[in-house]
């Protein structure tokens, strides 16, 4: 209950901040030495929150469905893409982490590549992956792969750390029981890794959303929220409130995914005492 109230208060605070900047800010922005340091606050750049909400209720196109319905559909489509991307990414990250924990040489050889993978700009990667769509897999799967590409990284790194976290005494105890690597993994390392796993999964969830939205924009995949962001932004000249409705949808999607990961975490960690990370 307190959490819900807190969340509501945060949303309210955001709205108040937005509207009060609109009220006091210079409509033409604040320019110092030719550089605009504060954004414009006119209706074209920052429409009133109420206008954006009203825009949600009005039809997307004359005679069409209201914007909010279109947004919900688009969010569900992107949620599907994100989910597949997240799960694939998490699985790959997990397997990589186990592999790197098991073989020291794998850690030495793979970890730099894992880190390097995240420095490849998405814009360079997207056209390549998009090309696989319709040939190796359906077009939407390309976007999922972009999401997975961003999502696997925090899981791989976080999980590796988690698997390596048991104390030498614990490992030695397992050895004294004549437990093999597999048993040690299941009984000791994986349980010990959960406090590392869930923060990593949260990061992966956020990364998967970003990957899905950017991937849609980049590959021109129809049906999702990323596509709506760019479609609506073309109307920024005449209908600025509409642009913000799409961003609202994207934000909502992020919250849903974050909530879903948190929901996954709850039943698995509630019996544990809070573990302090070193």
């Amino acid at each position: 209950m307190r959490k819900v109230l807190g969340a509501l208060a945060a949303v309210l605070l955001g709205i108040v901040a937005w509207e009060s900047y609109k009220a006091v800010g210079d409509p033409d922005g604040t320019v110092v030495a030719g550089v605009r340091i504060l954004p414009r606050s006119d209706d074209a750049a920052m429409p009133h929150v109420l206008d954006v909400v009203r825009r949600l209720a009005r039809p997307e196109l004359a005679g069409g469905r209201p914007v909010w319905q279109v947004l919900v559909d688009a969010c569900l489509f992107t949620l599907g893409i994100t989910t597949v991307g997240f799960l694939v990414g998490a699985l790959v990250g997990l397997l990589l982490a186990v592999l790197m924990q098991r073989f020291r040489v794998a850690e030495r050889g793979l970890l730099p590549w894992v880190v390097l993978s995240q420095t490849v700009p998405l814009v360079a990667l997207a056209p390549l992956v998009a090309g696989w769509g319709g040939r190796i897999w359906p077009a939407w799967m390309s976007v999922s792969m972009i999401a997975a590409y961003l999502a696997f990284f925090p899981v791989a790194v976080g999980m590796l750390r988690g698997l390596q976290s048991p104390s030498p005494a614990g490992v030695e105890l397992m050895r004294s029981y004549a437990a093999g690597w597999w048993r040690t993994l299941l009984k000791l390392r994986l349980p010990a890794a959960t406090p590392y796993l869930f923060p990593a999964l949260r990061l992966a969830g956020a990364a998967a959303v970003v990957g899905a939205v950017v991937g849609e924009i980049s590959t021109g995949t129809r049906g999702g929220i990323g596509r709506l962001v760019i479609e609506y932004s073309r109307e920024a000249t005449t209908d600025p409130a509409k642009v913000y409705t799409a961003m609202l949808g994207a934000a909502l999607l992020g919250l849903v995914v974050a909530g879903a990961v948190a929901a996954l975490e709850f039943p698995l960690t509630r019996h544990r005492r809070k573990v302090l990370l070193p």
Partner: protein
Amino acid sequence: MRRLALPLAALLLISACGTADDPGGTSTKDGVTTVKLQLQWFYQAQFAGYIAAVEKGFYTEQGLKVELLEGGVDIVPQTVLAQGRADYAVAWVPKALASREQGAQITDVGQFFARSGSYQVSFANKGINSPGDLKGKKVGNWGFGNEFELFAGMTKAGLDPGKDVTLVQQQFDMQALLRGDIDAAQAMSYNEYAQLLEATNPATGKLYTPADFTVIDWNKVGTAMLQDAVWASTERLKDKSYQDTTVKFLAGTIKGWAFCRDNAEACRDLVVAKGSKLGASHQLWQMNETSKLIWPSTKGIGLVDEADWQRTVDLSMSTKNQDGKTVLTKKPDGTAYTNEYVQKALDQAKSAGVDVQGAGFTPKQVTLNAGGA
């Protein structure tokens, strides 16, 4: 332990399998050849001819099943074509020639837009009526190869684009012009210019009118470059069956554009039905302006005009942008364009009774509504 096993099992259960089929390239099945066309952008009236040919069955008449591939921010149509992921692509001539110079084996087989749709627009009270008037002004441009007509126009007027004007990277909406951040903005006649006329003038509370703006039309200045054309794979053009498919595809496309010339409203509806998010009046405007870039076509739609081609190549080699780069460093080698197939398609269309010149074409007066609705 069991608690942890559950999500692990769930993770392992994920089946991320895609369907592996469709190896790309034309495939003929039961006498129907499947063809993929890569567009430059999302469905909009700029591509109405192709959309109409699909929806009205003009390709089917030719024994083709055409699949239209929408563009995206990072999708370069001529690259998609060169990599064999599409059979044909729609692309602007200068950009496609630049890709060609970098090794893309592609040939212009149908020059559907005979004229350029690029404008440089400013408020009427700024007094910018010719490229020379841009001197000392803030000039918006999109970059990424969309700016060369503007730079050629300024160079022709004796300006040094690097020194005599302030160049501003322009967004894909027209806010910057309307707010006065820039004095002149790049706009396509069929899109951004319409956006201006769909916006409300705060001074009057009504929509802006054409009288509020002055337009520099590069066709009139003489620095226009050829735009939308259909490109084919140079390598595959050696193959007889691809040649036949090309003629059939062009014949269907010619019929599609002729249909849209005569039935603008029907084509607008086809585009809107394809899921375009732009409003109906905006699409009708775009349809009308697109037709103006094609019709009337004195020699016949789709033929490359030698003089226009030469001017496009010359400007591509001589015009420097702000980075001092030209589009091309040398003349295009090999078969950069050919009229061979489109001529066959034209003959075929003519004998089928299609008006391929549209001498009687008169543009409509399209009324734009607020926001393009």
